[in-house]
């Protein structure tokens, strides 16, 4: 078996372009949460030297001068198109591993000549472009790490290789690895690259030639596995899947500063509700809850406080969690304080049912049925159809800013695209 990884080119921008023809062939950038900085750039925007993470306020002049189109992130759209992307991939393979919102690993058989199935890779690309409207690149290799390297090469050599690179051929690997800086190999960060430098390891070829025990000494077992994978030895533990979630956080900047306790309580409840929903989705309960709120560092005497509580019995019930965060907000709110951000952390997550029972605390026996109904309604009729009243209704100035968001074209009936 061999692996291939398919990534979507400039995903957020490409997604916007599917439903907004006016964004085609012009520079486009998509902004992060709260419209802070550029997190996706079209090829045209990259050519104007706009970097990943450039803050919006520094880009104002460039945007005006070149007529760059701006969009807030439309996660409803991106999640839906990612779902469709993976549906198409599933038609070609028995295994799709979703690696991130814009890339997935796919298992494909090796051809009888020992090479990767490049023809199928091209078919997957064409099918995704036709079905979902998204441009992609594919890297193939005997291991996930090699497919990832191949994918990076496919990006860099799109014009030459038509977006598909296969690294099954050992000789080709040797030639390419000699030119490939070690810092650009998947999983080698700046710190690790600096550590490898004095050992004379500068290219991917040097890295692949490292004896496995040395790799383990220099890095960790993770580096050893990477070196093995680069040599075509598949490591089962070398899975891109994150370990089961141990903690989750929902922390967001306010769209506008918050100065009163009711607003802060409501904003905190919204984050708490979302955090509880996230862990319910994974079948987990939290044993520890932390809530914090603070002001801007750039102003004098910003308020800053946090509270934590042990949840007993462990919970993912928004009624329990929001009751706690509301009390916490009342306790930590400073009169006259100007708050710019708050958040909720749920920690020490354990699978539902496996959590240690508390001798004295009794969980609400009706909760499972109620929460199943709550999640069922919200998944069928849209997020926040049913929620805890403390979370409030409608948009608030404290909500994360998404002022340039495109419509939820594929997930909300009121916003579907219009044809004349």
């Amino acid at each position, binding site marked *: 078996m061999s692996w291939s990884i398919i990534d979507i080119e400039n995903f957020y921008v490409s997604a916007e372009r599917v439903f907004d023809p*006016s964004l085609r062939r012009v520079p486009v950038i998509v902004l992060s949460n709260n419209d802070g900085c550029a997190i996706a750039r079209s090829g045209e925007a990259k050519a104007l030297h706009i970097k990943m993470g450039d803050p919006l306020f520094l880009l104002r002049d460039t945007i005006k001068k070149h007529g760059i189109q701006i969009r807030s992130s439309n996660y409803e759209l991106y999640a839906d198109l990612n779902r469709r992307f993976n549906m198409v991939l599933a038609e070609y393979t028995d295994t799709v591993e979703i690696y991130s919102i814009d890339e997935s690993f796919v298992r494909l058989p090796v051809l009888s000549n020992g090479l990767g199935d490049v023809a199928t890779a091209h078919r997957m690309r064409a099918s995704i472009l*036709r*079905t*979902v409207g998204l441009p992609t690149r594919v890297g193939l290799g005997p291991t996930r790490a090699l497919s990832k390297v191949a994918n990076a090469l496919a990006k860099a050599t799109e014009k030459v290789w038509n977006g598909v690179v296969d690294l099954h051929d050992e000789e080709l690997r040797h030639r390419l690895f000699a030119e490939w800086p070690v810092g650009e190999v998947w999983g080698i960060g700046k710190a690790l690259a600096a550590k490898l430098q004095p050992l004379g390891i500068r290219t991917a070829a040097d890295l692949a030639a490292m004896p496995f025990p040395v790799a383990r000494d220099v890095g960790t077992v993770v580096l050893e596995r990477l070196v093995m994978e680069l040599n075509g030895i598949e490591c089962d533990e070398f899975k891109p899947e994150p370990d089961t979630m141990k903690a989750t956080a929902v922390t967001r900047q306010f769209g506008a500063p918050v100065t009163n306790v009711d607003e802060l309580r409501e904003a905190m409840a919204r984050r708490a509700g979302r955090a509880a929903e996230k862990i319910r989705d994974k079948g987990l309960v939290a044993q520890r809850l932390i809530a914090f709120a603070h002001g801007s560092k750039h102003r004098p005497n910003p308020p800053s406080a946090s509270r934590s509580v042990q949840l007993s019995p462990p919970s993912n019930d928004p009624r329990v969690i929001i009751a706690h965060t509301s009390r916490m907000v009342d306790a930590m709110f400073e009169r006259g304080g100007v708050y710019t951000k708050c958040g909720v952390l749920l920690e020490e997550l354990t699978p539902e049912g496996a959590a240690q029972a508390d001798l004295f605390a009794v969980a609400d026996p009706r909760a499972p049925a109620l929460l199943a109904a709550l999640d069922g309604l919200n998944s069928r009729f849209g997020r926040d159809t049913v929620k805890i009243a403390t979370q409030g209704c409608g948009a608030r100035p404290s909500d994360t800013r998404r002022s340039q968001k495109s419509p939820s*074209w594929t997930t909300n009936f009121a916003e579907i*695209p*219009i*044809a004349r």
Partner: protein
Amino acid sequence: MKSNRAARRGQIKANRPAASPVPILFQRVTMASKRILAMLPLMQPVPLADVSPSLRLRIVGAAGAGFPSPAQDWTEDSINLAELLRLNRAGSFVFRISGTSMIEAGINDFDVVVVDRDRKPVPGHIVIAIVDGGFVCRQLVARDGVPYLEARNARQNYAPTIADDTVEVWGVVRAGVRDYLR
């Protein structure tokens, strides 16, 4: 006074089905009525005349006193239009039609259409295309080997568009949904 009586009539009417064996499963209680309910001594029957007219009563379930439904072993999931329209396909999207450009093809203003991106458009198909930077709904036809996008409304003068490289056919219209009471 009149509205008061009407409200009361409504309550009585709403209460009558309690005797019927049809179970009603949903309960919708407003915050205000919740508070009133809390004040009522619900352990005892309350004469309808004593209930405040501002309180709207709803039936939340049928008492299990009658015959069990003879249909209970034969129930199936209710009909799911999303399934009929095959909205769960990766390449199926939903558009709203605005205007009467396709009225003679049976597509009206405000219709909802299901569009397949993954279907190869051939002459005769009704398609969603991008013309002058906007989405239009037109029929794809071939005249002397040249593909055209044509509106289907003889009363209005819609100019046909040659479907050349500058025109992108976004998807093929497969199904339509109309609200006849609108």
